[in-house]
């Protein structure tokens, strides 16, 4: 993987978008998965804390 692709693939915003997209897509059919993704969003939002 070249540097540009690696940089894109590891962008810090990517997990937020990933968790969010899955949460919204799953909401109609798999609400349990939506809850898990909401948990993921909350966990990742603490990236700036220790």
């Amino acid at each position, binding site marked *: 993987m070249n540097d540009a692709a*690696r*940089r894109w*693939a*590891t*962008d*810090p*915003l*990517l*997990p*937020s*978008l990933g*968790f*969010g997209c899955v*949460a*919204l897509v799953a*909401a*109609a059919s798999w*609400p*349990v*998965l*939506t*809850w*898990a*993704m*909401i*948990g*993921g*969003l*909350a*966990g*990742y*939002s*603490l*990236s*700036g*804390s*220790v």
Partner: protein
Amino acid sequence: MLWLFSGLFAPLPSDSRYGAILAIAVVAVLRDAGVAPFASIPLPQNRRQVPQDVLQRDLPRGAARFGFELGTGVRTFVSATAPYVVAVALLLANEGPLVALLTGLGFGLGRAATPLLRYASGAGEPWDERLRTRLRAITVSASGLSAVAFLVLAG
């Protein structure tokens, strides 16, 4: 724990419970976006860091203690509102133990994503700088996307 206490709210109509969740989620978005006066709402937390010497004295036990104190919030800085929204949502929604369990697992996955992504970047300090510039977007999107998801779940 939250699921256990959620039964206390079960007698309330589902619309009311999800309405409260949505209202809190909207306040969280405004707070994380820095909108006054919501930006000044304090978050309950024990603003102390786990001492680094816990890792130096005994690494395996220290790492377990570090993870426990950080993960349970005994000693940590909380920089986002979304975790509190999720906690309140689990308390009010009364959706069942599987939902509570998977939400907790998802939370752990989210916490793990930061060091994993940093490691995968192959350039820790530049990645840290990129994270720093995106933190506001991350926290606002967490509470915002959660609010939209709760809106769909309530529907």
